[in-house]
């Protein structure tokens, strides 16, 4: 790859539930050099830790099989290298699964480089004094219920994995933009002193990390922000030059749109201080960025700046936090809202009479106030769906919510319909701490041979 003037880095997934087909289109028709799949939400690794504790072969992203089956033939044929965090809580197990898929597809024995060392659960267990960023309390307060602790690793260790030559790199927790920055650093030998280039690459990674969100997804508005052929919207890529010049494009002959408006929305997405977007690789400043439409579906990104990376890794700590129970039932026609509100009071009273209590409790009138709370002077809808939800350490108390809401069919105001089954789910909460770099030891391994 070195010696080429530009590399093309494509985005194949931006969340664990992302659509799969556009990644295949990008692999087959996008003329890309790298395909990056970002598939880990905040609590995904915690959930996969639980899966691995039940079966040591599991703990990688369950979507790995289907996603890779879709793109491996095209990627192998065209020499497209894959970088993904679908290793989740078990990158080695994930690598073995990838290699089995490749063999089953008749693609032979494919080495997979694995990034390890993001799992710092044993480290943080010995550091109860660490401060939880969200509430300022010591980590000690949640250590008894700890499920996982994973550091957001940076591009450096992913670069090392790419340097092994393995066509596929599988990681656990790595910061989203770092997954995209790594192929750029690898291709052009950028160092951590090349701050303007790291800034450009990190900005590009941030633009790509939510896939279709930069090509018209999560954007369209009929008559105001029209998106052509949104049903067939394509995934994006970045053309990156050795000097850090970035151009964003998308798979040819797909739907969607890619322009300054879509790029601006994605650039600011999930950002707090736009002069200090902290990743493991740098502290990005986007306030000097200019976005220029060079051609249809092609935007040039320039002017990103950065300060050096910080001395800490951000660590996501997962911990069990009781149960959420919920139930829903609908009311329609005359006085629908009044009957729904009466039902909510009855359910609350019945839960109280049974001695159940909740850390947090919520009543939603879907169709009226479930998304944006009680607004002023809203018209009453024709029909409304009552939803009640509560969080509690007591599984029975959680189940009782949906049970009592369902009982509104027979024991509540007139004309209730369509109650759902009572729902209960385990809560895996996450908190964050900052861990000094010297306590984290990123490593690589290669799964190959027999």
């Amino acid at each position, binding site marked *: 790859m070195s010696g080429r003037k530009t590399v093309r880095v494509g985005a194949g997934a931006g969340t664990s539930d992302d659509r799969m087909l556009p990644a295949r289109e990008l692999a087959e028709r996008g003329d890309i050099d790298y395909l990056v799949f970002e598939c880990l*939400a*905040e*609590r995904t690794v915690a959930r996969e830790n639980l899966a691995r504790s039940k079966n040591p072969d599991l703990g990688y992203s369950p979507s790995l099989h289907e996603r890779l089956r879709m793109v491996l033939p095209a990627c192998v044929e065209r020499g497209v290298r894959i970088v993904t965090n679908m290793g989740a809580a078990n990158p080695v197990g994930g690598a073995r699964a990838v290699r089995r898929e490749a063999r089953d597809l008749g693609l032979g024995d494919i080495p997979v480089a694995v990034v390890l060392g993001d799992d710092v659960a044993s480290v943080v267990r010995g550091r109860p004094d660490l401060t939880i960023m*969200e509430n300022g309390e010591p980590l000690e307060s949640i250590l008894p219920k700890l499920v996982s602790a994973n550091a957001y690793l940076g591009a450096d260790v992913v670069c090392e994995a790419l340097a092994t030559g393995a066509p596929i790199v599988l990681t656990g927790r790595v910061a989203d933009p770092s997954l995209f920055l790594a192929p750029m650093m690898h291709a052009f030998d950028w160092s951590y002193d090349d701050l303007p280039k790291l800034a450009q690459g990190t900005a590009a990674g941030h633009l790509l990390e939510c896939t279709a969100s930069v090509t018209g997804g*999560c*954007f369209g*508005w009929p008559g*105001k*922000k029209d998106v052509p052929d949104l049903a067939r919207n394509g995934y994006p890529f970045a053309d990156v030059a050795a000097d850090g010049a970035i151009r964003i494009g998308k798979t040819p002959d797909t739907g969607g749109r890619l322009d300054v*408006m879509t790029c*601006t*929305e*994605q*650039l*600011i*997405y*999930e*950002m*707090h*201080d*736009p*002069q200090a977007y902290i990743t493991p690789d740098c502290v990005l400043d*986007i*306030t*000097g*960025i*200019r*976005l220029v439409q060079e051609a249809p579906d092609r935007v040039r990104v320039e*002017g990103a700046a950065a300060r050096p990376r910080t001395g800490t890794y951000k660590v996501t700590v997962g911990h069990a*936090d009781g149960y*959420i129970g*919920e139930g829903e039932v609908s009311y329609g026609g005359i006085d629908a809202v009044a009957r729904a509100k009466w039902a909510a009071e009855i359910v609350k009273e019945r839960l109280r009479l049974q001695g159940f209590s909740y850390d*947090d*409790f*919520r009543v*939603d009138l*879907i169709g009226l106030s*479930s*998304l*944006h*709370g*009680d*607004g002023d002077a809203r018209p009453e809808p024709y029909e409304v769906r009552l*939803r009640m*939800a*509560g*969080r509690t350490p007591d599984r029975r108390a959680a189940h009782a919510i949906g049970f009592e809401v369902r009982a509104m069919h027979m024991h509540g105001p007139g004309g209730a319909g369509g109650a759902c089954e009572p729902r209960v789910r385990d*809560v*895996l*909460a*996450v908190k*964050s701490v900052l861990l000094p770099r010297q306590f984290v030891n990123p490593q690589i391994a290669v799964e190959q041979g027999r």
Partner: protein
Amino acid sequence: MSVRVYDLAHARAGDKGNTSNISVIAYDGKDWDFLRRELTCERVMQAFRHVAKGPVRRYELRNLNAFNFVIENALGGGVTISLAQDIHGKSLSNVMLAIELPERG
């Protein structure tokens, strides 16, 4: 006649923990100064009072004709423990777009 944020700008909401960030991007850069003057943190907090406890901070991105509003205590404790349907607060950009601003002087 008053004008809505919707008439002048587009917006998108993101989440980090219990904090929502909402971009406001002027369609026309000429409207950025008006938005800067009228779309204050106080006005935004007033619109979000049924959803968020706040506080609200505003960052300016003049190059991008944009602002970034960061609204704390907005997501029911955060994605992983929230009892809300819209745990990420993806729909909250529409609260921003519905804010009415006074007539331009």
